[in-house]
Every structure is written in structure tokens, then in C-alpha cells.
């Protein structure tokens, strides 16, 4: 029965029931866990071996029902309809039995083997909810196990149940609809048998629900739906079935669960009294964001000097051992200053990601969507847009993907267009570099917060414009669950931060390393004759500058530079904008290379921060920051953008939209700061 002893398990459940966490506990893997919808946006597999069977778990995006309401739910529904799997593992939150059983009743109709998991049992028992799992199993006709993904309770029972059910024969579900529907199902079934066709319940259901068009049965189906309409006050067949399902779910939940203690208000309600308070809610949120950026800067800058001096002395040390001048320049000025400039910001990145992952795992994110929806709505966005937008502070790539939780295509597109305004982690190094150079450390945290805020505000204005002129149309309704608050699981927060650190280092070691080499090469060649300059007693720094200006990079920069003249950018800044398209950290690496070339190699290299202070006026620096904040997404993000929007033309729109906005905003910034 089971091929090669491999069992493929489709893990299905509503959002936040602990599917990902359960899979992690069953298979010792590290899938991402969050406490809002849309964390698992694509199906992910994890596997484990138990009693000689290989069990493959497929983590599907959370779905409230098998209705293609959002893209998430489409992915799940399509997978269940047409992919290969042996068993459905339906995970449900035992503190919300009725709501979860709604989906269960739909899953049972798929006629697949199924095991039901009463997850979060630790919480429901603590709240005094007792669930009779044996009775539940009888009513549904499938195996039911209690589990806590958090404590690992029920792990072996679940794996055993999966194997047992994989080996058993399939038994059709016993769920009964109400009288009128059952009558019609029987009519249809009898008629099908009388004309020698498949009269199974499944077939009759499909026909009754209009999922299959059939000439032969048209008369009997029409009379059936007339009959049902009378009973159900003119509802459509889908609406009727949704009411039937919740009635079944309600009936079962009442039958199998008992509340022994009745607490009036649980912790979630108490916390919400404060966090989503009508007056304090928004200020608290803004304060928390301010705090996050303050900490990101303050705490992150502590190890910065250390890293900076380690990198510098490392370069010096290595430099002493390299005899060949060209080679030394490549390694010290190219690789070490390029990569080192990026490494400097690792602590900031880690703190930011730590903060975002706290937002994600506690359940606060959905509250903010609630707080902001009214405001967002006026700008043509949806409260749920907040989730991709805040994810965008980390990285645009997952942000584009999490926009899938938005049901309306228009809301989704607008959100994706403005995700770039939410400065991603890779832009953070650029900000921190310039802020450190131009502001005192007391102001720095506030300036950083201010930059993010300006980005967000520009994004909102952008959304309004897009809504007004390009993506016109109706609004998506706002119906959103606010999940129970949960303490973050430190193991997973740690894991997220660790993965980010690793990715950042990997990027520095590969992508940015290569970019640094290329930039070094382009800034050192072609070699020009400087002998006559030396004879004319021109200082060494002047000569270096002359060489740099005549390098490939210098020439290219100078050709484009006039375009950026109104913003005050010199050719170095101009060049870094272009190299930054590869990845935003490369902006810093480029500046690291371009501004370090003027130095004597063996001199104690002055830090990039000081160099910038000397060579760039404040107005230019601010205009540059604003430009970097808004202009086009990096290469990797662009690819995901095209994939998620599904149309290349949108990418063109995005380029035009972001470039124009960036240029205008930077120009205004420049004007403001030159006037001061």
C-alpha cells in the first residue's frame, strides 16, 4: 500500500494553529514560525524517519477555508486538489474548536485519509477546556490526537497514527448535513444509480454544489436548488453550505468539549485593553517603533569601532606581507575595505531583525494592522498591507511574498509598489554610515527613526497617487482574526537572527567580495602615465586622485554625473548608486573602495566615516540618503517582484515610479539643506 515506505503528509490548518511549529517538533527542522497569517506563504517540506517509515511533511499556507479567498488559500486548495500526498494532517487550535472544525468539515469532503491534531492542548487545558478526543474521533470517523507543539507532547502518538492510517483502508466520512440537504443528496444519488452512473455521496455532493455541470441532471438539480432556497431564505448554494458547515462545527464542538473553569477575561483581552486602546494604541505603536530604531543604532554602534579597528589593522597586517604593489592594493584597498565596510553593520542588522521577529511571533503585528487600517484605508491601502510593509524593513523579498495575504489584486499591487519605500536591512548600512558621519550620537537614533518615518510617509503618498491614477477600483473588505498573544519561542527567534547573520556574512563573503574586486579593478585601471606629474612636484594624493578620475569607473561616473549634478552628487556617489543596484550594501562597499584609494596604503587608513565628512557637504549627504531610500530595488528583489506581480510591465512601472520619486525627493531635500 505504501510506496517505498514513504508517507507524504499534507499539513493543513487555519493560520496560527501551530502547523509549522508542530512540523518542527515532529521532524526536528527549523521552519519559520510566526503569529499572524501569511508567514508560510509557500509550501515547504520537512522529513523524518519513524519506525522504518520515511514521513514527509508538507507545510501548507494557513487557510480559514478551502475557498480561494486569498492567494495563500489558493495555493493550499490547489495542492489538496491536484498534488500527490497520502494523508492530510489537519492541525487545529483546541482553544477555538468551532472555528477550526469549519475547515475540517471541508477537508473531510476531499475523501482522503486524514488525521486530526488537537494542538495547543497545553493552553486549552490551562484555560479549563476539556475535549473528549475519543468522542470526536467517533463523530468524524478519523484518528484524533492531542498535542502540544510547544512542549512536544503527543509527538510519538501522532507519528504512530499517521503510519497506522496510511496502512488502513480509507473510510468515508460520516458527517451529516441537515435534513433538506440530505434529502436532496439522496434524490440525486438515486437518480444517478437509476441511469447507471456513479451514485456515491461524493459525486452527488459535487453535483448539488454546482462544482460539476451536467445536462442529464439539470432538471433534478434545478428542483433541488429551488427546494433549498425555500428553506434557506434565498441564499446561494455556497452560502448555504457555509452555514451548514459552521452549524456542524458548532454541534460537534458543543458535544465534545466542556469548559470547567470560566475565566472572565483572558490574558489576550487584558493586553489588548492597553495595546489597542482607542487613544493610546497608536502612540504606543509609534513609541515601540522609535525604540526599535533607537536600539538598532545605539546598541549596534557599540561594537562598530571595534570592528572598524579590527578590519583596519587586519588590512595593515596583511599588507605588510604582500610584496607586490598591485596585489597589495587589490587585497587591502579592494577586498578588505569593501567587505570590511559592509561587515561593520552586522550588529545593526541583527538587532533590527531581532525586533522584527519579535513583532512577528508575538501576535502584535495583526493588532497594528487593526490600529492602522482606518488610516491606511484613506491612502488606498489595506490594514493587512502593514504586514508586508513591516517585513519590508527587513528585506523586500519576503515582503513581496507576504503581500499574498491581500485578497484584492489592486491592494496587493499597490502594497508591492511601495514596499521599496520601507527601507530594507541592506539600506541600513548606508544610513548608519552617513548618520554617523554627519550627526552627533545623541541625534543619531532619532535621525534614523526619522528616515524610516519619511520613507513610510512617502510610501503612503505614493500609494494614494497609485490608487487615484493607476489602480482604481473597489476596496477589499477588512475581516481579520487577531490571534492569541503568545510568548516568542526563543529558539526560533534565535534561529531567525542566526540565519540572517549567516546570510549577511555569506553575502559579504561572496557577492560583495566579488563586487569589491570588480570595483577595485574598475577604479585602478587603465593605468596612466604619471611620471611627468611626479616631476612637476604634485603631491601624491593629487596624483592618486587624478588616476582615479581617469579609471574606468571614474570615466563612467563622470559621464553620468551631470544628471545628478542638481542633487550635488560627486562622481563617486553617482557610481555607488549604480553598483548599489546589485545589492544595496554594495553602495557602502563602493564608497569604501572609492574613498580609500586616495590613501597611502601603508598609512593608518582613516575610517570611511571621516573621509565622507571631509569630502561631502551635508546637503548632498541628505539628498543621497533620500535617493538611496527610494530608488529601484536590488537585483534579487526585482526578480521576485516580477514573479509575484506576474507581469514584466509592472516592473517597468516600478522603475519609472521609484526613479522619478527618488530624484524629485532628493532634489527637494538638497534644496532644503542648502538653504539652511
Amino acid at each position, binding site marked *: 500500500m505504501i510506496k517505498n515506505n514513504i508517507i507524504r503528509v499534507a499539513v493543513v490548518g487555519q493560520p496560527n494553529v501551530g502547523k509549522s511549529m508542530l512540523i518542527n517538533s515532529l521532524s526536528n527542522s527549523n521552519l519559520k514560525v510566526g503569529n499572524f497569517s501569511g508567514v508560510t506563504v509557500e509550501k515547504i517540506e520537512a522529513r523524518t524517519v519513524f519506525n522504518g517509515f520515511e514521513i514527509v511533511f508538507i507545510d501548507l499556507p494557513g487557510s480559514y477555508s478551502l475557498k480561494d479567498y486569498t492567494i495563500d488559500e489558493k495555493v493550499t486548495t490547489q495542492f489538496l486538489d491536484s498534488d500527490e500526498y497520502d494523508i492530510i494532517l489537519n492541525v487545529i487550535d483546541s482553544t477555538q474548536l468551532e472555528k477550526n472544525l469549519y475547515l475540517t468539515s471541508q477537508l473531510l469532503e476531499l475523501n482522503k485519509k486524514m488525521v486530526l491534531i488537537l494542538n495547543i492542548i497545553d493552553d486549552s487545558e490551562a484555560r479549563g477546556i476539556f475535549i473528549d478526543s475519543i468522542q470526536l474521533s467517533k463523530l468524524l470517523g478519523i484518528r484524533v490526537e492531542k498535542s502540544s507543539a510547544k512542549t512536544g507532547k503527543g509527538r510519538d502518538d501522532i507519528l504512530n497514527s499517521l503510519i497506522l492510517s496510511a496502512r488502513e483502508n480509507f473510510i468515508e466520512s460520516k458527517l451529516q448535513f441537515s435534513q433538506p440537504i440530505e434529502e436532496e443528496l439522496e434524490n440525486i444519488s438515486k437518480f444517478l444509480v437509476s441511469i447507471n452512473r456513479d451514485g456515491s455521496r461524493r459525486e452527488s455532493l459535487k453535483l448539488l454544489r454546482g462544482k460539476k455541470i451536467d445536462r442529464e441532471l439539470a432538471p433534478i438539480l434545478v428542483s433541488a436548488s429551488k427546494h433549498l432556497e425555500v428553506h434557506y431564505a434565498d441564499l446561494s448554494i455556497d452560502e448555504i453550505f457555509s452555514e451548514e458547515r459552521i452549524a456542524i462545527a458548532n454541534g460537534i464542538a458543543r458535544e465534545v468539549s466542556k469548559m470547567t473553569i470560566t475565566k472572565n477575561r483572558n490574558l*489576550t483581552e487584558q493586553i489588548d485593553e492597553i495595546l489597542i486602546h482607542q487613544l493610546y494604541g497608536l502612540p504606543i505603536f509609534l513609541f515601540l517603533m522609535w525604540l526599535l530604531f533607537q536600539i538598532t543604532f545605539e546598541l549596534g554602534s557599540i561594537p562598530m569601532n571595534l570592528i572598524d579597528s579590527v578590519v583596519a589593522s587586519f588590512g595593515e597586517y596583511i599588507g605588510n606581507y604582500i610584496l607586490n604593489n598591485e596585489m597589495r592594493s587589490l587585497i587591502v584597498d579592494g577586498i578588505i575595505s569593501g567587505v570590511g565596510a559592509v561587515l561593520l553593520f552586522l550588529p545593526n542588522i541583527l538587532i533590527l531583525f531581532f525586533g522584527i521577529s519579535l513583532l512577528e511571533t508575538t501576535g502584535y503585528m495583526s493588532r497594528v494592522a487593526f490600529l492602522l487600517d482606518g488610516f491606511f484605508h484613506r491612502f488606498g491601502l489595506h490594514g493587512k498591507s502593514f504586514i508586508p510593509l513591516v517585513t519590508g524593513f527587513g528585506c523586500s523579498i519576503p515582503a513581496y511574498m507576504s503581500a499574498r495575504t491581500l485578497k484584492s489584486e489592486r491592494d496587493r499591487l499597490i502594497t508591492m509598489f511601495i514596499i521599496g519605500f520601507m527601507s530594507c536591512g541592506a539600506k541600513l548600512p548606508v544610513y548608519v554610515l552617513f548618520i554617523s558621519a554627519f550627526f552627533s550620537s545623541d541625534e543619531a537614533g532619532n535621525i534614523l527613526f526619522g528616515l524610516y518615518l519619511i520613507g513610510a510617509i512617502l510610501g503612503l503618498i505614493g500609494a494614494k497617487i497609485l490608487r487615484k491614477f493607476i489602480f482604481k477600483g473597489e476596496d477589499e473588505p477588512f475581516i481579520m*482574526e487577531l490571534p492569541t498573544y503568545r510568548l516568542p519561542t526563543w529558539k526560533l527567534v534565535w534561529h531567525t537572527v542566526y540565519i540572517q547573520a549567516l546570510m549577511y556574512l555569506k553575502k559579504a563573503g561572496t557577492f560583495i567580495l566579488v563586487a569589491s574586486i570588480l570595483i577595485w579593478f574598475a577604479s585602478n585601471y587603465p593605468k596612466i602615465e604619471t611620471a611627468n606629474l611626479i616631476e612637476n612636484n604634485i603631491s601624491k594624493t593629487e596624483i592618486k586622485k587624478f588616476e582615479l578620475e581617469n579609471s574606468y569607473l571614474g570615466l563612467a561616473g563622470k559621464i553620468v554625473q551631470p544628471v545628478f549634478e542638481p542633487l550635488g552628487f560627486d562622481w563617486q556617489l553617482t557610481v555607488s548608486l549604480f553598483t548599489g543596484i546589485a545589492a544595496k550594501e554594495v553602495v557602502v562597499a563602493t564608497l569604501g573602495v572609492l574613498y580609500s584609494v586616495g590613501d597611502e596604503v601603508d598609512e593608518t587608513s582613516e575610517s570611511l566615516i571621516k573621509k565622507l565628512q571631509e569630502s561631502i557637504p551635508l546637503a548632498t549627504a541628505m539628498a543621497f540618503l533620500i535617493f538611496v531610500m527610494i530608488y529601484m530595488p536590488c537585483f534579487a528583489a526585482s526578480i521576485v517582484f516580477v514573479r509575484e506581480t506576474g507581469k514584466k510591465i509592472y516592473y517597468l512601472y516600478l522603475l519609472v515610479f521609484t526613479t522619478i520619486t527618488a530624484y524629485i525627493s532628493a532634489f527637494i531635500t538638497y534644496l532644503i539643506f542648502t538653504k539652511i
Partner: protein
Amino acid sequence: MKTLYELKKNEKTKVKTLHSRGVIRERLVSFGIVRDAEIEVKNCNFSKDNIEISVNGTFIALRSEEAKSIEVI
């Protein structure tokens, strides 16, 4: 007709009729918002554009348009 939107904070009542149709109705129903379900208004946001309700231990945020389409006793 009295709607959910007119309820005050912490006021409890029962649902009478849903006036929305189609997918929105199905989504509301799937959250347990059906005739006779007990419903309580928990919070609203600053602009009162959205309200939070509790049904069967689930907290659900709605926009005022949706709240106005839910008739209560």
C-alpha cells in the same frame, strides 16, 4: 434595524441577520458569525473605522462597513 456598529464597547448581544452576500458572508460565517451567535464588541480604533469583536473565543477585527452589515438583536 440595529447593527453591530451601534454597539458600545463591552456590550454583548446576539447576531440576528447577516446582510452581506457572497465571499464576505462566507468568511464571516466561517468565523462563527451566524444567526444567534453571541457577540461582544471589544475595542475600536482611533478613527472608529474598525472595531474588534469576540465570537466564541475568537477575536475578529472588522471595518465599519462590515460591522454595519451585521444586524443584531
